[in-house]
């Protein structure tokens, strides 16, 4: 009896995922079609990739909310450079460079000045949103034919290229975080910095690495987001904040691990993508989606009792 209860608690969200999948397949005949599933995957990709970036930082024991400001800004830079005739690689590298710079600054604030990552990255987010707004005037920047969307969203066989990219990134990060010494040490630094120090690990080095890797992944996310919409949209950042955080937090618990992890985020992103997908297919009321997402978040965290581990410290 005890075993079952614990098992259920640990895997609740996973069970919900399966159950919903079954329900949706039954409720809508179009759900299971290859086209739709591919579409679902594509929708989840950007969310998932940005989620990977956030989770890398969470594994290191910090949090980064600035991505909601960095990503639209990077998208704007990327789109502007392209529409001004710069070659693709210049635009791509510049985007990456900006992302890394912002991440590096944040890591300095957190590791050297010992600022709390929660508040500093919120401030950074607002600041970057402001800079973006000033730069673009709040308008969208369209790519039109400066960029061939097919490079990213074209098909290889039946699979869109971006899904392959998603899979590749997932595999790389999975091995990095779960199977390498670096990943193990990053985790230790995040969970127990004191013991880490006693064991000879330098938290500053690892946290900085976490932020930089996260920043690089955010840049990829910005690129994909711009590519998908064929332009840097005004809503790119704000729309991303809540879903990505939800994916990261729910991802902690999906596979019963009670800690930030990459495979969990993958599943959580798919779960959220699936809900959005089904909403369209089943013509569910508009308001049910955010409510469902909120409920899942709260259930996931509460039932798996990871509330004790507070990733985010509020103290100023």
């Amino acid at each position, binding site marked *: 009896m005890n075993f079952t209860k614990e098992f259920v608690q640990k895997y609740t969200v996973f069970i919900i995922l399966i159950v919903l999948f079954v329900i949706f397949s039954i409720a809508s005949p179009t759900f299971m079609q290859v086209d739709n599933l591919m579409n679902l995957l594509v929708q989840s990709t950007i969310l998932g990739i940005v989620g990977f970036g956030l989770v890398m930082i969470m594994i290191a024991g910090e949090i980064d909310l600035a991505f909601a400001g960095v990503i639209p800004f990077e998208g704007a830079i990327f789109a502007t450079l392209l529409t001004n005739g710069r070659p693709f690689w210049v635009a791509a590298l510049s985007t990456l460079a900006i992302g890394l710079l912002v991440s590096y600054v944040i890591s300095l604030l957190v590791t050297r000045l010992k600022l709390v990552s929660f508040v500093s990255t919120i401030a950074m987010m607002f600041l970057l949103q402001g800079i973006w707004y000033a730069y673009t005037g709040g308008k969208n920047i369209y790519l039109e034919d400066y960029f061939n969307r097919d490079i990213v969203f074209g098909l290889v066989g039946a699979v869109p290229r971006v899904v392959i990219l998603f899979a590749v990134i997932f595999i790389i990060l999975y091995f990095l975080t779960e199977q*390498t010494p670096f990943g193990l040490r990053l985790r230790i630094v995040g969970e*127990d910095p004191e*013991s880490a120090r006693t064991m*000879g*690990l330098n938290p500053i080095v690892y946290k900085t690495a976490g932020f930089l890797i996260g920043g690089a992944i955010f840049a990829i996310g910005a690129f994909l987001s711009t590519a998908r919409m064929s332009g840097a949209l005004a809503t790119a950042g704000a729309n991303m904040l809540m879903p990505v955080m939800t994916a990261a937090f729910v991802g902690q618990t999906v596979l019963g691990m009670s800690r930030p992890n990459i495979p969990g985020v993958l599943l959580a992103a798919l779960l959220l993508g699936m809900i959005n997908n089904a909403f369209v297919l089943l013509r569910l009321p508009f308001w049910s989606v955010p409510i469902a997402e909120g409920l899942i978040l709260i259930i996931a965290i509460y039932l798996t009792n990871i509330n004790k581990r507070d990733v985010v410290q509020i103290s100023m």
Partner: protein
Amino acid sequence: MTDLILEMKSISKQFPGVQALQDVDFSIRKGEIHALVGQNGAGKSTLLKILSGVYHKDSGKVTLNGKELRRWTPQQMIDWGVSFIYQELNLVQSLSVAQNIYIGREPKNPMGLIDWNTMRARAEEALARIGVSELDVNTHVNQLTVAKQQLVAIARVLDMNPTVLILDEPTSRLGLEDAERLFTILRNMQEKGLSIIYVTHRLSNIYRLSDRITVLRDGKLIITSDTDKLPAGELVKHMVGQEVVDLSYGSKKELDQMLLQVNGLFGSGVNGFDLKLHASEVVGLLGAVGAGKTETVRLLFGIDERSEGVIQIGDTVLENHTPTRAISAGMALCPEDRKYQGLLLDNSISENVTLAGLEKFALWALFPNRKKEKSTVLELVNRLRIATPEITTHSRSLSGGNQQKVVLAKWLCTDSKVFLFDEPTIGVDVQGKAEIYQLLHELADQGAGVLFVTSDIEEGLQVCDRVLVMYKGQIVAKLDPRESNKEEASLYAMGGSPDELH
């Protein structure tokens, strides 16, 4: 001695206002177990911190394997083969046994990924080497008992083949069987040539394990001797010194009405505690670190949950109570960690003093009457002689002794009858200590019952009317300070018995 692994000669270390170590010699031979013994504040931890590299010595010479060392970092000392296992163990709780043993030295396969199979196999070997075979290396450390966790910590350290191992009070949280097992492991390692420095307060540990004993007192080396040449009675005498205890504070009392009655208290770290505390008396709870004193106090105040036991204060029986209940029943606690548990450091003295009894100053129990507050606080500050220019100063800026007085003042604003003081004079200067003792006795004279917890035997005998000595979570002696002495009390605190004194 050519088989000296480590030699520390004439080590001195001074901190502002206190000479922590003066000309201390300490050495350890190959394959010996050497007990380092002394009361709190004797200098043991300072000596070890200098050895580990956390502190720098002021003067003296340190030689390791024949080479003199000038300056080193903690990591270097570990690399040179000198390893420490502290009471906190420093394991990563959410990781498995195998992972903990190999953090920083993870076995890799050609692609750079962790080779989990090798890690597991080697971890099993590491455990087998210390005679532990029943542990599944995949278990997460947080699912293990403290005893097993300690074994994991030891396996990790020993797997790195140190030449010297330092253990700080390793059996304080172990039961008999686990302690036995630890001893076996240590003796095995000793045979293989490992030298061990063992810090402890327990006579049984000293006499069963060690080859030599070094006693420190007040920062000085008192004696280094072969264990079999130093009987327990003499050992204790060296530890406590010859000075007579000044018994000016406590006195033999006629027992008045009973304020606090505790029967059969069991809980984490407490294995059967009884107490009858009467009005107007100061009862001391003595014992070494890890004896269970603070754990008892926490159970009494309701911070931790007890597994068994009856606590009655006055006419009220406290059932599974919280601190709020305990306080309203008339209990007060000056906690061990006065800065972070007793005070709001960034608040003014005034705010701290009125915190627990605020409703008494308030109109309709809602609006504090600031004038009344201020005058009461001023009166208390004067009465307790808290040295501060203003009552609006943040309590952070006060000295240890004055901070303690603020905590006491807080309880004087409530209707407390039973006062629990946990190590109130730690970090307080001589003058402050005297003032605190005086205040305690004033409280008693006014009818309160005081439980005074301390690991300083001399202080306990000096201040209290009667004294209970704790060891391993139980009371092992009830003494009258006027008829007992430091040696007897220390002996009990270390787990010894009276016949060992002679």
